[in-house]
């Protein structure tokens, strides 16, 4: 599903964010990406979202090299990917429902279809009764769940999350991780960047640890050394 083949990323300032990183993720696999801040987690996710382009190496999604994807094709690639942000990136000028509906509107779903799918997504994160609220009225954990609903509403094949539990207490964080696990159960490939070592060790799943742009650990458990 996802294959990094000796991928490097050097920013224009000369900073080397990733150094020949290689790994593979199968369809329906879930993994955590960890490391100190500045280790390259965000850059790796940005490469997957095509916000940044690699300096060298190949990035293959579903066997297709997306390095050569033209700018006009990028939106259609992003429609296959769901993204959850640390600061959830919700829009406060519209309701929870409209926030979650955004990826569907962008892809041209019909209004009735949008209603059905948005309610299903909100139901899956347990926020069906909040669809008419403004996200600003919700708690931090609820806002993050709205962000997750928006990331999965269009049934992406790949779900990426950048520090999704960054601002949440341990109880809420565990709930959020359970949620990701459930999406993996239905066949979504899930990659979660997090520095919450205790939490991800408890999950007993594949962990990839980045250190100064290099992948220094890839395996189950042992997030800390």
């Amino acid at each position, binding site marked *: 599903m996802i294959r990094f083949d000796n991928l490097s990323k050097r920013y224009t300032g000369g900073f080397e964010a990733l150094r020949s990183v290689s790994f593979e993720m199968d369809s329906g696999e879930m993994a955590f990406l960890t490391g100190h801040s500045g280790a390259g987690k965000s850059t790796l996710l940005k490469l997957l979202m095509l916000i940044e382009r690699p300096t060298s190496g190949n990035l293959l999604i579903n066997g297709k090299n997306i390095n050569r994807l033209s700018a006009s094709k990028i*939106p259609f690639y992003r429609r296959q990917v769901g993204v959850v942000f640390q600061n959830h990136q919700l829009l406060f000028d519209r309701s929870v429902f409209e926030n979650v509906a955004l990826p569907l509107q962008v892809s041209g779903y019909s209004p009735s279809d949008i209603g059905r799918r948005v309610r299903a997504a909100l139901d899956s994160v347990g926020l069906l009764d909040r669809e008419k609220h403004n996200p600003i009225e919700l708690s931090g954990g609820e806002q993050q769940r709205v962000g997750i609903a928006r990331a999965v509403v269009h049934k992406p094949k790949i779900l990426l999350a950048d520090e999704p539990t960054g601002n949440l207490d341990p109880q809420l964080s565990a709930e959020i991780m359970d949620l990701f696990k459930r999406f993996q159960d239905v066949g979504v490939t899930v990659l979660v960047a997090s520095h919450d070592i205790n939490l991800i060790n408890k999950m007993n799943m594949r962990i990839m640890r980045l250190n100064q742009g290099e992948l220094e650990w890839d395996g189950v458990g042992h997030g800390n050394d």
Partner: protein
Amino acid sequence: MAMTNHKSRGSQHSQQTQRGARGSAVSRLDRWRGYKHHHRTTLQSSFAKMLQEPFQTLLTVVVIAIALTLPTALYISVENIRQLSGGVESSAQISVFVKKGARSAAIEKLGEQLANLSGVASVTHISAATALEEFNALSGFGSALQYLDENPLPETFLVQPLLLNDSAKLVAKIHKITLVDDVQLDMEWLRRLGALLDVGRKLVLALAAALGIGVILVIGNTIRLAIQSRRDEIVIVKLVGGTDAYVRRPFLYTGLLFGFFGAFVAALMLVGLGFWLEESVSELASLYQSQFRLTGLGFSGFLTLLVIGGVVGLAGAWVSVRQHMYDIKPR
């Protein structure tokens, strides 16, 4: 609480999710419906956003309206003057003077000959005697004429050409007829008026171009502010797979609406101007014993103005979107 509550339905839900995942392809009809719906809601929300800042919107619309009113008013003036001069053109006549001593039968034949020439609308015969009578009555030199042995005035035909442009050719043709002494066509001043109107029309074009660029800049600036205030939204839409066309659409609609409303207000201003001028113009016309009436924008002119406003608005939005929207990229 909601989470634990939800977990009891977990398995049921995951089945639903899986089915949805397989059926996630959007049919063409659904896509078209979604597209239509999207356009409608985009137009509505663009309009709603304009109403959220009523003062700013009104200001922009009025500026656009004034910029559209000026060249349109000048255009209408030029058209009106042209119509007026058209009335004068049709009264332009060719005077044909017959050689002295022609017999009355020959004169009658000449009249028929003139009437049969191509490009001639009508021919009026003024006999020497009639001309003398008129001269007597109008000039006040009647007593002086008594001292003349014979009538000095020639037999005359007034030839009305069908088209002003053909009159020069007609004059040349009439000149060749043996019985004709002289032909006169006084239309120098008409030519001057025509040239003046040409200058007027060019002025209209120049003014329209200058103010059109002004409108594009005004709308461009308004759209620039709109883009900046919706920066977050643009970033997120791009992140969830919105195409550039999708992102720029609301701004293009906003530009279109500004252009439309500006043109509409301009039309209202022109109607008001028409009413204001109507009385003075008809008084002026009556002093010249003319039936002339002001011709306004008209319905087709109104529609044309709306289209022009819309196109200029769209162009302004396009310029602004090209300049400012593509800088906004997710980071």
